[in-house]
């Protein structure tokens, strides 16, 4: 018999107990009754729609900003703007997202943005997008920057000698070469946005049918004692995230294959 290493003994049981089992616990607790109640709840579908729409715009904004960051990475890496932006990319890793939400609330809420409405930007779908963006943008930025690092800079130099200013060289050479990373960056920040709860609830609020997203819907249903509905909505989230992971993996495989044939 093959000798089993201590690392296998450590990994296999803990992985199944601590990661797989909780996911299965959700699936195993889905009931017919809970499904019917949830899928009949228009508020649930509002939450689904809000989640998908806000995460889409957050990811879009994230990728656009990440491309701006990539431009600084390539053309102005010595500037203070780049250095601050680079540093800030790592900040949300350690920052509690409640703090991020509170920061956004103070910055764009009633006090500073009262001219827009009674609560400023807070507790609107825009706030939800901004909260999602705040926590997901660094992922997109790092994805773009690490792909930009791989690009042969001499291509950019040649483009310059052929008449491109930095902006043109970026758009004609760098962005097309980033293609794959732009897609991954989008899916990653979309996924991160869907999963965000704390920052969204602090700044966007949790108004059913208005700013409620799937993450906050699950929370509310647990609070209301509607556990079967919370479980159904959670299973829905698991399916959604599985789909996103599959999309990312498929793209990576396709990419690896096209790189092989290259």
């Amino acid at each position: 018999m093959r000798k089993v290493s201590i690392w296998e003994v450590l990994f296999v049981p803990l992985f199944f107990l601590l990661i797989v089992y909780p996911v299965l616990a959700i699936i195993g607790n889905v009931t017919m009754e809970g499904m019917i109640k949830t899928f009949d709840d228009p508020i649930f579908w509002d939450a689904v729609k809000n989640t998908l729409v806000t995460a889409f715009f957050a990811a879009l904004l994230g990728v656009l900003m990440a491309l701006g960051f990539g431009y600084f990475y390539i053309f102005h890496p010595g500037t203070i703007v780049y250095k601050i932006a680079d540093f800030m990319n790592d900040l949300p890793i350690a920052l509690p997202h409640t703090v991020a939400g509170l920061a956004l609330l103070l910055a764009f809420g009633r006090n500073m943005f009262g001219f827009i409405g009674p609560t400023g930007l807070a507790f609107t779908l825009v706030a939800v997008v901004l909260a999602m963006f705040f926590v997901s943008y660094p992922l997109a930025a790092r994805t773009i920057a690490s792909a930009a690092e791989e690009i042969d800079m001499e291509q950019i130099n040649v483009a310059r000698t052929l008449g491109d200013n930095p902006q043109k060289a970026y758009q004609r050479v760098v962005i097309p070469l980033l293609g794959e990373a732009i897609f991954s960056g989008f899916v990653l920040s979309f996924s991160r946005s869907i999963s965000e709860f704390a920052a969204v609830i602090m700044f966007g609020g949790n108004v059913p049918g208005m700013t409620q997203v799937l993450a906050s819907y699950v929370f509310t249903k647990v609070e209301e004692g509607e556990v079967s509905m919370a479980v159904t909505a959670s299973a829905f989230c698991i399916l959604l995230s599985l789909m996103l992971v599959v999309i990312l993996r498929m793209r990576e495989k396709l990419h690896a294959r096209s790189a092989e044939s290259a």
Partner: protein
Amino acid sequence: MLEAQNLHKSFAAHRVLKGVSISVHPGEIQVLIGLNGSGKTTLQRVLTGILEPDQGTVSIGGQDITALPPEDRRIGYVPQHTALFKHLTVRENILYPLRNGRGSEETFHEIVKLLSLEPYLEWKPHKLSGGFRARVALARALVSAPRVMLLDEPITEVDRAKKEYILPLFREVLLQLNIPVLYITHDPWEAGQIGTSFLVMKDGIINRIDSPEEAFALIREQARINGE
């Protein structure tokens, strides 16, 4: 005429160019010979405007271009390892300068024919052999109607046997242009095949020499001192 005067360039404490001056006349192919790491590419990058010199000036035809960005210098550049645009076909690579209003379809066809590139126009660069990649990189620079040509070891990735017929081809094409050409190599044999005059780079400065063999003697001594 391409002229550089007293160029200095350091990377942090590492002084690479220590007062380089050159002048290349139209119709001349000056070959710059130097050891690995002697600063040849750094000089090319200062000439193209990709790097800023710490001191010194660059001029073309008497016009000081030291402050001009690369896109306004009209210098054709064939870099080390060719740097073809990976995402574009050979045709799109060579036509690239037309996007900026440089060159014409006419010169494109002429150059493609001259360098025998017709069969490969729809290929992606990674499928080409080293020799054809070098031809495409040369064609792309030529189509931009440059005032000066700089080539940085353009055929390092080419087999020796193929070098023997690609070099005369490149020489003929470059001489036809009748513009100043600066060609970098660390191979004295290649230098002799392509060049009309010769420079050697050593200790951060450049000296004119009479033959590639002389360069070889100079840099051999340098290599021995470096312990290589």
